[in-house]
């Protein structure tokens, strides 16, 4: 490791970790307390918060593999942020465990009484049953954790070298198949965990929609963290406006991709207007849910799209950070809008436990993220392409 870049747990990151841990603890205590009053509400609040946090963690692994494959200079500054995010996947797997105890509260196909009275659910039972559902979840998490483990371990080996390391093909050999598996496993996971809330409904673009959404989550998150610590060692003087510009462009691209996919799904189902497809949108466009849909259309697409058009904004650390945080908030709103109307189709309902769940899971996850991020050098100084990426920012 080069002398100038130490694994420095800066005061700012330490403070972030402490605050996130406090918010997480308060949220979890409130959530657990609420669970005694209403176990059903606990699971209904837990799932959207879980989908939101999961999106950042798995998105980190995907973006990390993407960066290993493309070798873009944009990734060198955020590689350790992505690695720390990917290293939280075992925690995310652990956080999945409570859901396993509440499946009948969430999914009609997990309730034998409902299945007995529904021919469609009986036909889908070979796939949608509790045993197979849990086995698939275990398989996803094992696969994701293995990829995260090796990419992180080899990175640690690179840090241990005396100087700039050789071009390491192992990263690419793993990341190529990894990206392919990411697309497949996330498609299945999104069908299992979210789409099957409405077991009669189906949309073949659903997995892609999750990929676009996770791209938004991870780039917004990485920008926010990089902006937070760009004034401290080891980032100070190394992170340039050009790096934020690149990350802003990638975030912009994912905003457009997500909107494109989300609208494609809507247009096809709306045009077809078939009885097995359209109820999903009818539920989400009535009883107050339409206002949340409008907020998503504006806050998740239109507003970030217009703001990110500006080159000056993308090069401005604070402005870009504000947009990124806004997008993260909207990512939760979007997860909520996907999940919650399945439980309350008649009218928009937000429970205090929804907020407790997102504070609890988000805070806990963020605290662990900060801890993992501080446990390693925050820049991959021994990577053979590190110097190139640094020079990319220009000389000023």
């Amino acid at each position, binding site marked *: 490791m080069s002398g100038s870049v130490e694994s420095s747990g800066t005061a700012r990151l330490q403070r972030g970790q402490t605050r996130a841990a406090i918010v997480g603890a308060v949220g979890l205590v409130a959530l657990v307390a609420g669970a005694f009053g209403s176990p059903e509400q606990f699971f209904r609040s837990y799932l959207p918060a879980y989908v939101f946090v999961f999106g950042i963690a798995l998105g980190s692994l995907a973006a990390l593999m993407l960066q290993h494959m493309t070798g873009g200079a944009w990734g060198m500054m955020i590689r350790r942020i992505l690695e720390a995010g990917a290293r939280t996947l075992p925690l995310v797997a652990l956080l999945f465990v409570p859901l396993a105890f509440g499946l009948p509260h969430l999914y009609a196909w997990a309730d034998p009484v409902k299945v007995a009275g529904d021919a469609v659910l009986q036909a889908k039972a070979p796939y949608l049953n509790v045993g197979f559902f849990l086995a698939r979840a275990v398989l996803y998490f094992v696969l994701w954790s293995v990829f995260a483990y090796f990419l992180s371990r080899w990175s640690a080996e690179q840090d241990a070298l005396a100087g700039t390391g050789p071009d390491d093909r192992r990263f690419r050999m793993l990341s190529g198949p990894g990206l392919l598996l990411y697309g497949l496993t996330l498609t299945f996971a999104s069908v299992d965990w979210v789409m099957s809330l409405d077991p009669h409904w189906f949309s073949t673009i659903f997995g892609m929609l999750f990929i676009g959404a996770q791209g938004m989550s991870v780039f917004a998150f990485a920008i926010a963290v990089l902006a937070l610590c760009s004034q401290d060692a080891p980032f100070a003087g190394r992170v340039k406006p*050009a790096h934020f510009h690149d990350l802003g462009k990638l975030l912009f691209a994912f905003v457009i991709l997500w909107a494109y996919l989300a*609208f494609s799904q*809507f*247009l096809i189902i*709306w*045009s077809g*207007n078939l009885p097995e497809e359209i109820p999903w949108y009818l539920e989400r466009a009535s009883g107050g849910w339409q206002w949340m849909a409008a907020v998503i259309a504006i806050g998740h697409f239109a507003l970030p799209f217009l703001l990110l058009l500006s*080159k000056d904004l993308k090069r401005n650390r604070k402005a870009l950070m504000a947009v990124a945080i806004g997008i993260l908030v909207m990512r939760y709103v979007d997860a909520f809008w996907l999940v919650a109307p399945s439980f309350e189709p008649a009218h928009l309902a937000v429970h205090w436990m929804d907020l407790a769940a997102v504070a609890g899971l988000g805070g806990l996850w963020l605290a662990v993220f900060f801890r993992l991020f501080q446990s390693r050098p925050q820049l991959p100084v021994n990577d053979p392409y590190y110097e190139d990426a640094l020079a990319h920012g*220009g*000389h000023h």
Partner: protein
Amino acid sequence: MADTAIYGLMAEFQDPSALVEATRRAVDAGYRKLDAYTPFPIEELAEALRFRDRRLPLLVLAGGIVGGLSGFGLQYWINVINYPLIAGGKPYFAWPNFIPVTFEMTILFAALAAVFGMIGLNGLPLLYHPVFNAPGFALASRDRFFLVIEASDPKFDRHATGEMLRGLTAHEVVEVAN
């Protein structure tokens, strides 16, 4: 003093980083009427030249807005006003159906504005430009990098400017005839 007898002085560089560095120093030395010529786009160069022309991005934005509005407007006019026809049991004003064409028109007009705006703002087509008088300038489209300080620059002085350029690791410095 500005010099009108020649177009300017041209320095030739072997690699892009030398050109960018020389451009920075020339700008720092106070020269403003200068331009660089390269075989491929160099991102840092615009910044080094302090190129601040925002007309093209605004033109592209305007093109996109005009394209989007006209695409949406055209469909609205046809489907709601001029020839209302029920298709697929949808209302006349079936806006989700209008989005794909609106999107395509936005891209089309923005792209056309970018291409023709770039050509127009560059003053193209241009039948004569003095830089082509310099011997070896054709290499600007192959593997050489050129910096030209124009004689119309208030700080331009045939001798002093030439000396400065020679001091900037220039491979060769030549005068460009008008």
